Structures are given as structure tokens and as C-alpha cells.
């Protein structure tokens, strides 16, 4: 089957003064079929958000650019695509729920103004028609009293409500792909669950593919079919969700799994990954995870960041992918 989205060896750098480049993503890979849901997991600073921005063409706004690699979306090459192409993609083909999207609503405008914009941006229609569609959209994201919410501004709505409005705006054109960048981070646990359920339901109703970015493996397991793990700008492991969580083939994925809050034993200290996450601009030479890895040997320190290699049902970027059993549980 033709994949909906195929990202191959994507490199992204920040443009600094004097033509210097600061790599933020190096060797990101992602494969996504129609209607499939993939999760991207990683610590903050691993490049998850920049990868999403590459998929909606807003890298230049953030002072970054794609330096090599390809983004194939629905038979179109998006890496280096001109703004004209992006306008036909953004919102229509790819919907996006931005990170910290509680700030995604303009505080001085009503919900109606902003929803109507996402409806009329594609085809012009009468105010009345657009308004009716806006109401339908709000009902679609299970907002009660849609008429009232239309007249409200961001500060009059709860966090969960704002998130629902953001989702409504993102799905206005029934896109083929929905990207949700940490959609539940700022919400409390019960609302988190509601929002995740809503996203799953909408995905089925509209037949959308989904990219869900999170630093929480638990959230991804709940919603996604497959997962891609990022560390220091690189894809380090990818595969079906169940396989990765039961038998990870990269020490980082394993560490993420062990440090999960819902696996903690009451009364004991929470497991944390030793060392600090490699931050942009200070990636170590060799495999970028070696300073925090107990399997690391000279080869890991010497050879460049390994490419993703198939092992069993998944892909791993660890040269010791077959030695995971040596790591203590």
C-alpha cells in the first residue's frame, strides 16, 4: 500500500548569524499509512515539535530550515516546497493542533471569528453558512451549547473547552492527516482522557491518519498503532506500539518505559533516566545516547549515529539491539 507520509533521513537546522547552522534534527524517519496513527515520543528538546513544524511548513518562521532529506506526503514532495504549495496543504490536507494549544486561540477574537476563518479560508461562502458550519464543527467535537461557545473568547473557556475548539478548527476541512503536538499536556487527567477519546473517535469518523506527539509513552500506547522514538534529533526506534512496549530494541526506549509513572512501585523512588538529555548544540560524537547508556562501548563512542536497522518487527538504531536482555529490569 502507498504510504500517506514517508519521511526519509530528514535533517533540520536552525539558521544562526553568519550562515552558521545549528542542527536540531538529524536523521528523522517516519512511515505512516492512510488512517494509521503513529506516536512520536521523546524528551523535550529531542526535536519532536520541529519535526511537526516541518510537516506544516512553518520552519522559516522559527528560524529553521530543512537541510537534507525528503518528506513525501500523498505523492507530493514537501521538503523545500514553496509557500504556494504549503497553502494548499496546511489546514486542508494536514490539520494541526499546536503545542501548548491553550494559547492557540487569539484572546481578542471570539471563537466564531476564528472558526469561520478556518471554514472560509478554503472556499468563500456567506457568513450565515459559515456560522452554521462552525456550530456543526463544535457539535462534532462534543461541545454542548455550541451557540454560546461561538460568542465566547479564550479567557471565558476552560482548558478542555479551548482544546476542543482547537481540534474543531484543525478538522474543519476534514484533513487526511491530523498532527497533535502534546495535545493534553496542560490538562488535568480526566480531561486528558476525554480529549484522547475524542481524537480517536474523530479519527475513525473522518478516516484521518494521526501523528500524536507526546513525552508520555502511556498516552501513545492508548491512542496509536505504531510509535517512533526520538532522541537528540534522531529516530532511534520505530515499530508497532505493542512490540515496542513489551520488547524494546533500543536502550533509550527501554529507559522511557521503565521511568513511566504508572509502572512505579508505590513506596519506592521513581526510576529516572540517568544523566541529562543531550541538548541541541551539544550532541556527543558517536551514538548520541551513549553517555547515558550502560551498554555503551568503544564502537558506540567512535562510530557515527547508527541508522535505523530492521530487527524483528521493529526498527532500531542501536548496534547492540540484540543485547537488550543484558539490561536489568
Amino acid at each position, binding site marked *: 500500500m502507498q504510504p500517506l507520509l514517508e519521511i526519509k533521513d530528514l535533517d533540520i537546522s536552525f539558521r544562526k548569524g553568519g550562515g552558521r547552522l545549528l542542527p536540531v534534527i538529524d536523521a528523522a524517519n517516519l512511515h505512516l499509512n492512510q488512517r494509521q496513527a503513529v506516536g512520536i515520543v521523546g524528551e523535550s528538546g529531542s526535536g519532536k515539535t520541529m519535526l511537526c513544524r516541518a510537516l*506544516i511548513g*512553518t520552519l522559516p*518562521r522559527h528560524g529553521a530550515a530543512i537541510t537534507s532529506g525528503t518528506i513525501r506526503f500523498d505523492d507530493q514532495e514537501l521538503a523545500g516546497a514553496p509557500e504556494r504549495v504549503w*497553502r494548499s496543504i*496546511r*489546514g*486542508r490536507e494536514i490539520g*494541526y493542533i*499546536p*503545542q*501548548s*494549544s491553550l*494559547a*492557540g*486561540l*487569539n*484572546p*481578542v*477574537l471570539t471563537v466564531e*471569528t*476564528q472558526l469561520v*476563518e*478556518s471554514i472560509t*479560508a*478554503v472556499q468563500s461562502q456567506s457568513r450565515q453558512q459559515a456560522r452554521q458550519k462552525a456550530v456543526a464543527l463544535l457539535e462534532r467535537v462534543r461541545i454542548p451549547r455550541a451557540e454560546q461557545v461561538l460568542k465566547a*473568547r479564550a*479567557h471565558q473557556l476552560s482548558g478542555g473547552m479551548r482544546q476542543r475548539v*482547537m481540534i474543531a*478548527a484543525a478538522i*474543519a476541512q476534514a484533513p487526511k492527516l491530523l498532527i497533535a503536538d502534546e495535545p493534553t499536556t496542560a490538562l488535568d487527567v480526566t480531561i486528558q482522557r476525554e480529549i484522547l477519546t475524542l481524537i480517536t473517535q474523530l479519527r475513525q469518523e473522518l478516516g484521518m491518519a494521526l501523528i500524536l506527539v507526546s513525552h508520555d509513552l502511556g498516552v501513545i500506547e492508548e491512542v496509536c498503532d505504531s510509535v517512533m522514538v526520538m532522541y537528540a534529533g534522531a529516530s532511534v526506534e520505530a515499530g508497532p506500539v505493542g512490540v515496542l512496549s513489551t520488547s524494546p530494541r533500543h536502550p533509550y526506549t527501554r529507559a522511557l518505559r521503565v521511568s513511566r509513572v504508572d509502572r512505579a512501585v508505590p513506596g519506592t523512588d521513581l526510576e529516572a533516566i540517568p544523566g541529562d538529555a543531550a541538548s541541541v548544540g551539544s550532541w556527543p560524537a558517536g551514538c548520541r545516547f551513549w553517555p547515558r547508556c550502560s551498554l555503551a562501548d568503544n564502537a558506540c563512542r567512535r562510530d557515527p549515529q547508527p541508522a535505523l536497522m530492521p530487527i524483528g518487527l521493529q526498527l532500531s538504531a542501536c548496534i547492540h539491539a540484540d543485547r537488550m536482555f543484558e539490561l536489568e529490569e
Partner: protein
Amino acid sequence: MLHLLRHPILRRLVQAFFVAFLLMVFAFLLIRLIPGDPAMILLGDTATEADLIAYRKLLGIDGSLLEQFGRYVFNLARGDFGISIRSREPILSIVKKRLPVSLWLTATTIIMTVALALPLGVVAALCRRTWFGHAFQIGASLLVATPVFFSGLVLVLLFAVQTDLAPIAGYRPGFPGNLYSLWLPALTINCVLTPVLARILQSSIIETTDEEFVEAAIIRGTQGWRFYWRYLLRPSLAPTVAALGYFAATVVSYSVIIEIIFNLPGVGMTLVDAVRNRDYPLVQGIVFLSGLLVVSLTFMADLVNGWLDPRAKIR
């Protein structure tokens, strides 16, 4: 009755009244702090002690401070601002003659500030990394550091002496003819106001650019004027409008210098004369009335902000 005070606009009005009262007290006390006796100034060195006492009584500046203040407040409450010690003319009629000039100057200046600072701030924010952005930074600092009496003279030299675009000095009443004599003084004040306001606007727009809702609007496909007005300008205007209200107030004090440079017969010039003559009632009247003007201008700025940004509604 008290529950009415909970209405934000009413509460703000009560605050404004309180400020106006304080202003009246200050105006009354400050002029009396300056050494010098109006009776002595008017009668000259040859006057006897008896003459002075009689004259002070005539002028209404006899008795203790408290007595004088009581009389002043009592008269003010009836709308009587008193009469000028120097010209024996009622304060209100002097102010009525002089105030229009100052109001016209203020209005022209503020309209000019908005017309110049808005586009300048927007362009400076959008082009902050180009040569224009850098030139703007340097030019703005230079202009702000230049005192108005200097820039005023340079502008007169350029536009009134070298060319015929403005009169060298003086004022011709009546709109729109008066704009001919007002645009140069207004431009002079704007040498200071415009760069400051444009900088405020520039930095708030730059801040807004990083907001998540701007990214959301781009992804939605919002373009053109809609995008610039709704997502960049409107959410950034609050600090600018607040500053504008405050600037309108500074224009009132700038106008003292400006009216002297350009020989405009406004309240600023009258005020300087009144202080020199220790014309107590006239100083009090002008300070109090222009204070009221300032208070109402800032009040208006708050109202505009409430409309622009519903979060900032007067609390």
C-alpha cells in the same frame, strides 16, 4: 448606592474625581511654596505695610492657608475659579480664550503621533532583521535624545525659514487654517513621541509574533489584512494605547516649551506668565483644568483598550 461602585467604569470615574481633587490641593499648595508675594510684585518696592495688607485682602489671599483653601474649594464648587490677580479677568474667560489653541495643538500632535508611529512600528517589527530595522533603532534613539527646543529650531530653519511651508511663529485661529501654524510644533513634539511609541508597538508586535495563536492562524490559512490586523496588530495594541493616553498628558507639559518656541497663545504660555507674576488663582485654575484634561484622556485610553482587548476591560 454603594453597589453602583462595583461597576468598573463608575469606579474608575470615582478614582478620576479623587485624582482631580488631589490635583487641586497640589496646585493650591505648590504655587504658595514659591517665595514671592503677589501683592508685593504688583505694588512695587514703595508700598507700605498697610497698603500690602489691604491689597492682599482685596486679592483674597489674606488669612491662614486653611481659610484660603476653604474659600477656594467653596467657590470652585459653585464653578467660580476666581479672577486673575494681574489682569482682573475671570480665570474661566482667560482659559476659554487660551485653551482652544492648546487643545488644537494636543489633538494635532496625537493624531500625527498615531499616523506616524503605527506604520513605523509595524514596519519596524516586520523588518527588524533588515537594514530598516537597524536604521530605525539608531534613528529612534537619536531623536529621543534630542531636546525639543533644539529639534524645534532646526525644523523652523528647515520648513519656515528655508521654505514657506509653515510660519516662523504665531497662530491664526480657525480650522483648517490653523493647521498651517500647528503642524510644525506638532512635528517637533513628535520627534520625541513617535520613536518611543513606535518602539513600544514594535516590541509588542515582536512578542505577539511568537504566540501560538499566530501559528494557528497561519495553519488555518488566514492571510492578508485580516491576518495582520487580527493576529499581529490588535493583540499588540494595548501597551501602545495606554502609552498614548499618557503621551497625551505629556503633550500638555511639552506645550509649555513649544508654545514659547513657536509663539502660540495657548495655556502653556499663560501658565509661565502666571507663575512669574505669582498669579495664584490663574496658576491654580490652569493646573487644575489641564489636570482634568489629562485624567480624562487616560480614562479614554482605558476605554479604547477595553474595546480592543476584552481581557483588559477596566477592572
